């Protein structure tokens, strides 16, 4: 994101809205963005609607009010002058928007948001079948963001266990080698709000994968939200529950349920 300095009046409304907290007031009294840390999520631009006031008018008003020790208090979801300006992004910076702006559709998967399907369409794709387990490792979430160099560290650690990296996943598509989990060199310094490493393995390997994740989590400078999924048995039992408990990890009370209304329903061999 960019801020048009000619328009900005330094009201500061966009500062708190920034998902990464990287908009600040510059020495000139106008807002500026730490471009290294901005993830191009465009939340500031979408939430702060432009009121379209001329900058001179708002600045004059602020000066007059300050004479009486009064402040200019705009509604908190507006940009009084429309100073926020989405730039034209080029590779590899456009990756930031692809992963961080939920209105953007990933070209490789056709899915917006983080671009993953997980179990959401498992009833029609059969991606996770009996005996399979899916691990969904969301790097950078909640609210911290992640660099691809950290995402690569986790991917490479897990790759040693020879999982199946989901092909229709935007992170997998940025790997130069799914055998090693190595990612493209030119993207390692790019930062995104979050990105999901999506793998499939067998239920009896859950402990092995979670133990590996437990070790590598200490080497990354971000948070990770971890999810685990499987195809239910005919009586509704969730197969991974017992395995996770056996591995010694707590499960949430809440979760996601695919209720199986998709057609044609995938039939296992």
């Amino acid at each position, binding site marked *: 994101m960019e801020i048009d300095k000619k328009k900005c009046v330094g009201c500061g409304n966009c500062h*708190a*809205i*920034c*998902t*990464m*907290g990287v908009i600040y007031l510059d020495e000139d009294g106008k807002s500026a963005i730490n471009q290294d840390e901005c993830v191009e999520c465009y*939340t500031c631009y*979408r*939430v702060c609607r432009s009121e379209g006031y001329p900058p001179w008018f708002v600045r004059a008003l602020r000066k007059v009010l300050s004479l009486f020790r009064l402040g200019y208090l705009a509604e908190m*979801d507006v940009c009084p002058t429309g100073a926020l300006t989405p730039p034209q992004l080029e590779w590899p910076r456009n990756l930031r928007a692809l992963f961080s702006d*939920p*209105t953007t*559709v990933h070209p490789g998967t*056709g*899915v917006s*948001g*983080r671009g*993953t*399907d997980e*179990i*959401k*369409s*498992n009833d*029609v794709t059969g991606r996770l079948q009996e005996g399979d387990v899916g691990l*969904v490792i969301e*790097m950078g*979430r*909640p*609210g*911290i963001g992640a660099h691809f160099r950290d995402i690569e560290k986790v991917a490479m650690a897990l790759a040693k266990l020879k999982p199946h990296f989901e092909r229709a996943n935007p992170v997998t598509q940025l790997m130069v080698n799914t055998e090693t989990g190595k990612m493209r060199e030119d993207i390692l310094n790019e930062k995104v*709000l*979050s990105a999901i490493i999506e793998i499939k393995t067998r239920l009896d390997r859950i402990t092995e994968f*979670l133990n590996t994740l*437990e070790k590598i989590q200490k080497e*990354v*400078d*971000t*948070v*990770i*939200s*971890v*999810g685990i*999924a*499987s195809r*239910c048995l*005919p*009586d509704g039992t*969730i197969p991974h529950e017992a395995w996770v408990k056996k591995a010694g*990890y707590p*499960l*949430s*009370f*809440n*979760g996601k*349920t*695919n*209720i*199986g*209304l*998709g057609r044609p329903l995938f039939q296992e061999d």
Partner: protein
Amino acid sequence: MTNTLHRQGDVEHLKKDYVIFAHTAKGITRNGSGPKLQEFMRICLKYHPVNIGDGQQGSIYKDNTDIQTLIANQGDGAGAAAVFTDLDTLGKVVVDLIRADLGISINISGLLEEVQACCRKAGIERHSAEHSLGFWGAKDRLPEREVLEFNTLCGHGMVSFNFIRKMIEHVKLRRLTPKKAAKIMAKCCECGVFNPVRAEMLLEKVRKGDKVTVK
């Protein structure tokens, strides 16, 4: 939408928070999904969801958004979502969706046992399920639990920690009502999974100085 998987809160709060969403699979159910997604949204709308939307067009809390226009403009796409605050209403939505037989995948985020009971009552058994294994990594970088509970109400994390703190402060100073603050927060969430009713409830609690609990 791993996004809706990690919603934080104690069981009592989670009982008031169910996200139902339709999802299409590329190459299988996406082509021609527009009318089906529209019907999904119409069914949800019939039961007065507290939020509704899709990742492409935004939610009903976006400025100048009319729900009928939002539905009418829904073309072939990845999906749509709606939020309900009680299981009975969710059950009615599920029954209508079964009857409508749209042929696209339907998912529900919420308390797993409750959702299973809801499915069984409607005569179906769940197909697949996903749990959260919580937050890992540099957890020392995470904010206080109250803030996390609000932040995870938006799956993509578009409601920033700083903005949540600002809203809490404004509610405490009575510059904003909890309802108004919750509505502004909901505006940050594009795909319509933020639960403004739960946010309002949490803000009311925080305003009075009660601690919000996280499981």
